[in-house]
């Protein structure tokens, strides 16, 4: 076994550290070491988005990020989307609009949608579809997902006013 490195990072607003081997992906560490299994493995090579997390404000596939890259970074996973037990508008919208069926892609989609609304609070349908093209869903056909994102976007805008 290779020598493990200690990594310090800010995860969902908390300063933590963990040990990892050099070849371990951030996805693997999140799930297997930190026991945060909300982030999912679908393909392990950056094609399905089930492992989406936000790293230093940027939407990434955590299967394509080495765990050591988390050093000094700020990471948001699905576990960090709800604050103090209150669901984020996106999470509530996904529930209300029935935008999930099996739910395996849902964490990745919610994280990706949050990254979208953080950077573009009022996206068009086309902009939503383009942004979410990196998150595969096989159950819903995307219709209700797009509607949920539109709804959450509107609600967040209204809350600001």
């Amino acid at each position, binding site marked *: *076994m290779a020598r493990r490195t200690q990594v310090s990072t800010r995860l969902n607003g908390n300063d933590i550290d963990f040990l990892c081997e050099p*070849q371990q992906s951030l996805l693997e560490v999140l*799930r*297997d070491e930190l*026991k*945060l*299994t*909300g*982030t*999912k*493995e*679908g*393909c*392990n*090579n950056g*094609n*399905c988005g*089930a492992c989406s997390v936000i790293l230093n404000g940027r939407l990434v596939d955590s299967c394509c990020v080495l765990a050591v890259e988390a050093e000094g970074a700020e990471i948001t*996973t*699905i*576990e960090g*989307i*709800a604050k103090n037990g209150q*669901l984020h508008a996106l*999470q509530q919208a*996904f*529930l*209300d*609009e*029935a935008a*999930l*069926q*099996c*739910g*395996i*892609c*849902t*964490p990745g989609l*919610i994280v990706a949608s949050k990254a979208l609304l953080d950077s573009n609070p009022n996206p068009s*349908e086309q902009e*939503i*579809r*383009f942004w*979410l*093209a*990196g*998150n*595969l*869903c*096989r*159950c*819903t*056909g*995307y*219709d*209700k*997902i*797009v*509607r949920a994102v539109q709804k959450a976007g509107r609600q967040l805008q209204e809350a600001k006013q």
Partner: protein
Amino acid sequence: MTTVERSQYKVIGTRPVRPDGVEKVTGKALFGADVQPAGLIHGRVLRSPHAHARILRIDTSEAEKLPGVLAVVTHADFPKTVARVEQLGESTINTNEVGENVLASSKVLYRGHAVAAVAAASRMVADEALKHIRVDYEVLPPVLNVIDAMRDDAPILNELLRTRSMGGKVGDKPTNIAAYNQFKGGDVESAFAAADAVVEHEFTTSMVHQGYIEPQTSTANWNADDNITIWTSTQGAFGVRGLTAQILKHPISKVRVIPMEIGGGFGGKSPVYLDPVAALLSKKSGRPVKMTMSRAEVFEGTGPTSGTVIRVKAAVKDGRLTAVKADLRYEAGAFPGSSVGAGAMCMLGPYIVENFEIETYDVVVNKPKTAAYRAPGAQPAAFACESVIDELCTKLDLDPLEFRLKNSAKEGTRQVTGLPFGRIGCEEVVQAALSSPHYLSPIEGPNRGRGVASGFWFNGGMQSSVVVAVNVDGTVNLIEGSADIGGTRASLGMQLAETLSLPFEAIRTSVVDTDSIGHNDVTGGSRTTFASGMAVHEAGLDIQRQMCARAARLWGCPPEDVFYEEGVLHCRTDSTRELTFAELARQSARTGGPIVGKASLSARGAGPAYATHVVDVEVDPETGKVSILRYTAVQDAGTAIHPAYVEGQMQGAVVQGIGWALNEEYYFSEDGRMLNSSYLDYRMPTALDVPMIDTIIVEVPNPGHPYGVRGVGEVPIVPPLAAVANAIAAATGHRFTDLPISPRRVVETLHNLD
């Protein structure tokens, strides 16, 4: 069974938030790969690099010596099984063949066929150990399509295989044709001779995968007392229990299967791949073993659906479909059992046709053993038949939906099996499509075209078992055994709430393991809301009877004087006597103890479902890209228990169908390697590839179900292949008869025609 007459349902038809929703949107829900028992080690599978080979020798000794390796297994570790055909729920399964597929003994029959497995301290060590397993193969020529496989000189997968036909044997020499069948009625040749128009084409479709985002996973713990616990993502925990027990020759009472949340199935997660292997590795190592497939393994080592070759010839006279002759040849994959029979039995489902002749061939080839994919068998057959009908309509200048209406199957129409239909919604669905805003709107612009297609699926019944326990606060626990893939906790809870006249929020639904409930067949076959719903209704009635008996005891009146209405118990002979459900529940301890109801059944009365789809496309002649401009899916749900989840089934299936029509295929090299076994190159639709999918739910209640339910999950994947192909034909003037209609195929074809 009579359908409950209600002018208006209170809960059914509303759109409550599903009870497992919060866990799923916060990442707390536990799927198969999320379970981490103490002492967990990891298993990985060694798979054949060859599509067809004899296994001469497997030497695991080097792998066993590697530091960190705790167990190695091969087929030799399975107890010897005699071939036994099991009725495990929805399909017939030859357990010997399942065991062979799970770990090959003497022959590998497809690239990706599992040969050995290792359990080690980490996935990385296990993967390393696989490289140290030596397998000596005698490579054989593979056969990779039905036409080649049916030739007299084709390489034979199984020397013992003989063609079977309806309980008998046809032919006595080794063959790859596992089964042959025919459906015949009337006189097709006379009808062809007398027709106004006849169209004939040969169609091909490629092997495609269900594409569920969650790879197969199984975690097993074999205790020293031989009790086995399996945590797995499956469509059917009882199926896993039965098959694993059978393969391991282990009593089912010592196998407990815990169904975790499941990340998609569509039929592909009813079979068993990892569970017996994980169990054996656990037995040998004394540790719990987790096995999860990589995406490439999912493509190469699970159960995609058949590639097909289908010939259809059809005739129309005076606007009537008078004859259909068809030849369906489906890839079974490495072992017999494609769904070609269902294809033959569904393709004429939407029509009255007196003259038909359909031949079916189930053919083994050196590809993964096929598994069910959402209305298995029906989609390619509908692609072929609906395309030919489309061309006939074009030829005779008939509106394709008016044609379908004129020729619509109705109650009493005989199917190709001879069975008459009961109450069906075929006409209603076509009519709704005809009068839909989409169909009534014009389609304009160059390179644009509109296509329509219909589809049919039987829908299943099968076994369900539920328990209902009344809590002292008047809420109710619903304990059921149907894996919740698409919202069935909600649809079943709603049916119970309706039966008991309680609000939906009063029902607490749990999906439990095989130790905790009676047998439940798979969540699949569009059966759960129907059959488990029927059980839920019966269990609700059981609770009502018990509540009435309790109230009678409390009031000192005969039980037959007590009735339950709108959530309140009344006494016929004394109108001052009244108790709400909650009030009586509170007194359960003092009126006889806990109130628990149940129902177990093998559901009958499943109602078939119809779908008709309308799609507008635009074809870019330069790039060959087909854009979906607008899509409307119409479907008869019987009664839509939770309309949002019915819509979701329709929309999801439509997008799978679009992927199947336009991009998805297993692309094999000549030596039988799948060259595109990743999500990059196995191109499924993304959010950017499709528009909003409009849905129209028609309700022609199924008289066989208390709430009129018809299964909804499968039929919506049946029409899209033809609907898209028909739209492309309208847009380009060219009929594509081979799927997928990929950009390359479009460009090559259109430019050749120039």
